[in-house]
């Protein structure tokens, strides 16, 4: 079974080609290393108000005394945090002029994913201004949102334009001192999205990072804050299905979601960062802290993720179910190949009455990779009638990979009904045989079975993502049989 291997290999090979990506953006970099001065530099570059600088510095001072966590089942060489750049401004002229200059293999992959041409240009790093008439798209888009009263802008802009909202909510879900990587992010976050949905508004479209023009090169320490006021709804898409390259090896993002009474946030992620080469060299280290706070009654937060990239994924999108009757959901597909290491899962903290949560995690492990589900379901004493259902299934492809399940289930209230089930298996020969006997080629059969395996999660993705994600799963398995 080399299916998955091949895919990720294909993708990996594609990524080896460096043309199309600028490497010479020395000029706008902050000095190497991380000191108070670096933090001041970043803050000054962004013209931030004094209070923001103080907030960052406070985080930095805390971070200096923190230790890197070691409990996750991921192994990597010790990182030298003083030998890295923490800020580099994007340069507009660095990209290729047109798609003709982009590596054809990369384009092939885009083609397979069915990504529209214009989008391909953007993904390949073609200078957007030159070829992509995005201005008009974005303008219409912004007008529509403005009409609805939705604020959707880079967080650096929000800090300047909506300081009260930012002050009120930033760090209220993931405190500055939460964990090593979140604190690091608090000190040096580069940019990210800010979304505010006013009371009673149903966001007229799905918000996507893709539409934020200045998205480029801000991925390293992303900070996202989404607030859904009473009775509002928003669906937010992050990332994209196409392989993405980034100069920075360490990524430490923080995402905070807040829902008030009757509000709902649906947050979908497709992550396909560079996973490193077949020997596990290079690749992105992705250490993400994502947390949602269901503050209001009847509120809902739903996380959906498709994780296929990165050398290391360390990510636990969580829900604090504080409001009565609130609901948390976590749907995840994690595909790992070659030497990738995934340690991902969720935390459902039940504090309010009648809160419910559902966890569906599908791990697919191939090549020499390691795939861990780590989750917590916790029911506090005063949380009456809590309901949780957890299902985590692992699929192993090949005998060099590994799959682990580490669930924590803690109940302090007798009215809780908690169910957890997990299975680990490989694609059964019977299933393969059944498909092939009906004329489905082996490779397609594997893709079919794996897609079936992931179905529960794929269905949760917004339409436009679902189609691409489904293909991504298929591609990831190409050549893995025979």
């Amino acid at each position, binding site marked *: 079974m080399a299916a998955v291997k091949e895919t990720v290999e294909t993708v990996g090979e594609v990524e080896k080609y460096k043309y199309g990506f600028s490497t010479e953006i020395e000029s706008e970099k902050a000095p190497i290393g991380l000191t108070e001065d670096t933090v001041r530099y970043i803050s000054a570059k962004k013209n931030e108000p004094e209070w923001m600088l103080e907030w960052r510095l406070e985080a930095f001072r805390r971070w200096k005394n923190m230790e890197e966590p070691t409990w996750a089942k991921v192994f990597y060489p010790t990182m030298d945090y003083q030998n890295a750049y923490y800020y580099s401004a994007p340069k507009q002229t660095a990209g290729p002029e047109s798609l003709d200059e982009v590596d054809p293999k990369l384009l092939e992959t885009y083609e397979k994913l069915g990504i529209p041409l214009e989008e391909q240009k953007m993904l390949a790093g073609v200078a957007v201004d030159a070829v992509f008439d995005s201005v008009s798209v974005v303008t219409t888009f912004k007008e529509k949102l403005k009409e609805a009263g939705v604020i959707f802008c880079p967080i650096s802009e929000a800090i300047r334009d909506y300081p009260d909202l930012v002050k009120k909510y930033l760090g209220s879900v993931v405190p500055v001192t939460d964990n090593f990587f979140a604190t690091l992010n608090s000190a040096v976050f580069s940019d990210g999205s800010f979304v505010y949905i006013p009371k009673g508004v149903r966001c007229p479209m799905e918000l996507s990072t893709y539409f934020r023009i200045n998205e480029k090169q801000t991925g390293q320490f992303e900070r996202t804050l989404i607030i859904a006021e009473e009775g509002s709804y928003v669906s937010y898409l992050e990332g994209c299905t196409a392989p993405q390259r980034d100069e920075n090896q360490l990524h430490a993002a923080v995402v905070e979601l807040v829902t008030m009474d009757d509000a709902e946030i649906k947050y979908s992620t497709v992550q396909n960062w560079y996973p490193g080469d077949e020997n596990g060299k290079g690749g992105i280290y992705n250490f993400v802290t994502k947390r949602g706070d269901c503050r209001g009654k009847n509120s809902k937060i739903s996380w959906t993720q498709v994780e296929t990239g990165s050398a290391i994924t360390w990510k636990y999108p969580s829900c604090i179910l504080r409001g009565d009757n609130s609901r948390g959901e976590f749907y995840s597909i994690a595909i790992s190949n070659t030497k990738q290491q995934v340690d991902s899962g969720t935390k459902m903290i039940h504090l309010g009455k009648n809160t419910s949560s559902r966890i569906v995690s599908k791990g697919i492990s191939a090549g020499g990779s390691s795939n861990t589900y780590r989750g917590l379901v916790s029911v506090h004493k005063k949380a009456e009638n809590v309901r949780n259902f957890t299902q985590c299934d692992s699929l192993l492809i090949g005998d060099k990979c590994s799959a682990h399940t580490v669930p924590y*289930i803690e*109940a302090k209230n*007798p009215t809780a009904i908690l169910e957890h089930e997990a299975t680990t298996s490989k694609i059964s020969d019977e299933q393969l045989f059944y498909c092939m006997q009906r004329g489905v080629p082996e490779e397609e059969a594997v893709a079919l079975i794996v897609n079936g395996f992931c179905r529960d999660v794929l269905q949760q993705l917004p339409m436009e993502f679902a189609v691409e994600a489904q293909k991504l799963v298929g591609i990831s398995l190409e050549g893995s049989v025979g």
Partner: protein
Amino acid sequence: MTDATAQSFIDTFERERASLPGADGWLAARREAAVRELADAGLPHRRLEDWKYTDLRDVLEKAAFTPAPVHQGAVFLSEEDTRNGAALFHAIDRYKIVFVNGRLNRALSDMEDLPEGVVLKPFADVLGEAWTKALIERRFEINWQAQSVSALNMALMADGVALHVEEGVTLDKPVHLIFLAADDGASHMRTLVRLEKQAQATVFETHASAGAAHYFVDLVTEVSLGVGATLNHIKLQDEAEDAVHLATMRAALADEAKLDSFTMIAGGGVSRGQTFVEFEGRAAEAHVNGAYALRGKQHADQFCVVDHAVPECNSHTHFKGVLDDESQGIFQGKVVVRPDAQQTDGRQMTNALLLSRDASINAKPELEIYADDVQCAHGSTIGELDKDALFYLRSRGIDEMTARQLLISAFLDEALDYAPHEEARAELKALVAGWFEAGNLSAEDIL
């Protein structure tokens, strides 16, 4: 880091070292090494992942046990004791080895007329034999944090039993190990079981109080099963309310060997039961099951690791428990399937019923899998008594208490069915049925 409680155990060792078994032989060096290990690491505490839910260091520090004295005079079982677990299995024809305060009591024991090929002796008497040395010195390939406590036992083990069954021999009657606490204090014991090729044995284990209230039982059981050997094991833990019970069983299985172990926890203050199974040969099978019924402030932590190091082995773990009052239950299980351990079948299940507002349960069933051609699954459910079922029974004129008890026994019965001995199983079921009112077991002669 200084750990005063570990130090107090080390002090005990320094005082008693000359009188401990094997003081003049090879074991002395092993004890020295264990003491150093204990001094370096201290007792396990909450910040170690394997001890997340049971802070043994804190528990032992608060309890401040002194060594249990050698018991003088007759052993007296109060009526209270005889109603509970201490009385169990006495109707079954068996060999009987009684330990009081962690020391063999020959007067109460009955270990005569053993069949040929069976050795059943205090382990101190057979320290010169190769198999006992091999068992005591055995190191498991994966060194779990949870195993660190075996250093404490290694340093201080003062008595215990060694059972050896030769090739092809089937022990005609169960061996019943009875551990009684007659006086307060800490006792450290070791059980060694070696079954040679195709040998078979059944071992019962009872832990109960005979008058003591505040005591610490530290037991390590080493099991080694030869090719095709079968060990059935039933353990009943019915310690006093204020007792701390720490038991570790480590079993290694050769080809086609079978271990069938069942643990019933009915009493004890803080208890931690650890089971480690390592498959060394193909097509072996391990069942590690159990049930617990907790109330008061009882705290019971079951920790179970099954290491599938070789292909084609099966393991099955199922723990069910009910928790009343302010009791706390913990199940931590782990199935490890190492690379190349293909065709493994590993199952793990835990169910808990919470009967009270203040009871709590923590479950952590883990899978760690490095091979692809395997079938592994685990499940966990937590809930309260089914209201509809309760209503159904009440609507048919059954009073609430009886109805609840019926449902609870039905719930636990499912786990008790795993107990690998028919008569013992029936007695355990009777014990559980009487869980609400501990008065309906006959209190005739006990031992």
